[in-house]
């Protein structure tokens, strides 16, 4: 279930690449499409299947993306534990750990506290810091050649947005009371016939907003990689050495743009999470 959607699209893409290679006659477009799909597709490192009673129930294989998720989590754990440890001992934090502190201060003072207020913001600050740095590290790890972007898988982005959805509904019901949360979705003072139309619309609106979060993150990460690979594939299509210079220059420019997009997508995801959770948790007037 974890790789279901990406596996099905990639299988279809594999088939399409093979068909394209045979049908088009020329070798270039098919192999380039195949290379593109190989870069975006997940490579299984250790196959672990869960076979209760003989049929295949769950595919728990350790793939390259799983390894990237673990590397990002380990990186966050190591860096921020040492940063917090030195902060507690009030000693010099060193040059490289000092680099992380402005990001934390920015998320806290410019994103969470202006929108959510001090007391409520302090309660939900760990969630937003985790989301921001996890997405940021996953995006940045994908830019290193040889490693793949964990957030370029729809399941990973879906899980990240599912935490937002779970917090909206769960903490909304905890903070406001189980029934008043659903009652506050519809603004008070509405005429009686409109409520059966407005209430499902609001509920679907919450789900659609989280779905847009996942699609935004997923498509940004995938599109960046595909465009870079397409530009480098131009060299192979043209069969010419002189195309290499503009192609590599464009790819370099797109690489820098992708660096910017990595930061931006982490920022946008966290900001929209803050706004949605604030709307759910703050007592509505």
């Amino acid at each position, binding site marked *: 279930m974890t790789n279901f959607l990406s596996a099905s699209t990639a299988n279809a893409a594999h088939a*399409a690449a093979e068909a394209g290679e045979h049908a088009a006659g020329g070798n270039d477009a098919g192999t380039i499409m195949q290379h593109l799909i190989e870069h975006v597709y997940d490579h299984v490192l250790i196959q672990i299947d869960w076979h209760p009673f003989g049929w295949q129930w769950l595919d728990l294989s350790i793939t390259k993306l799983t390894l990237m998720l673990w590397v990002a989590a380990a990186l966050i754990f190591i860096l921020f534990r040492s940063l917090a440890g030195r902060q507690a001992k009030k000693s010099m934090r060193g040059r490289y750990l000092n680099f992380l502190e402005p990001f934390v201060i920015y998320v806290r003072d410019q994103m969470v506290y202006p929108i959510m207020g001090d007391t409520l913001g302090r309660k939900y600050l760990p969630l937003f810091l985790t989301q921001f740095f996890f997405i940021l590290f996953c995006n940045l790890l994908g830019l290193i050649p040889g490693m793949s972007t964990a957030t370029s898988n729809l399941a990973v982005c879906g899980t990240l947005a599912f935490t937002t959805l779970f917090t909206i509904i769960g903490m909304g019901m905890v903070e406001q009371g189980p029934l008043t949360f659903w009652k506050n979705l519809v603004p008070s003072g509405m005429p009686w016939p409109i409520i059966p139309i407005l209430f499902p619309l609001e509920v679907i609106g919450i789900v659609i907003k989280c779905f*847009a979060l996942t699609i*935004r993150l997923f*498509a*940004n990460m995938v599109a960046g990689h595909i465009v870079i690979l397409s530009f480098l594939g131009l060299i192979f299509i043209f069969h010419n050495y002189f195309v290499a210079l503009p192609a590599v220059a464009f790819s370099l420019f797109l690489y820098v743009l992708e660096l910017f997009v990595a930061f931006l997508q982490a920022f*946008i995801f966290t*900001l929209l999470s803050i706004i949605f959770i604030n709307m759910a948790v703050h007592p509505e007037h």
Partner: protein
Amino acid sequence: MTGLVAHLSAGIGAALAIIGAGYGIGRLAGSALEGMARQPEAAGDIRTAMIIAAALIEGLAFLALVICLLLSFK
């Protein structure tokens, strides 16, 4: 035949989505720049709001792009 129509529609759909997103973000950038020129003290706030709105509009365009990609693999 269906493969042909699918690829053609994927291309046209992507182009239309990008036209809409480009026009929207262009108007957004124009208004933001005009606001920053009128009142340079508010440039930081305007810049932040501009980035947020651009990311939201771009998110919708990427939604259409993902649908076109799924279509072109049929």
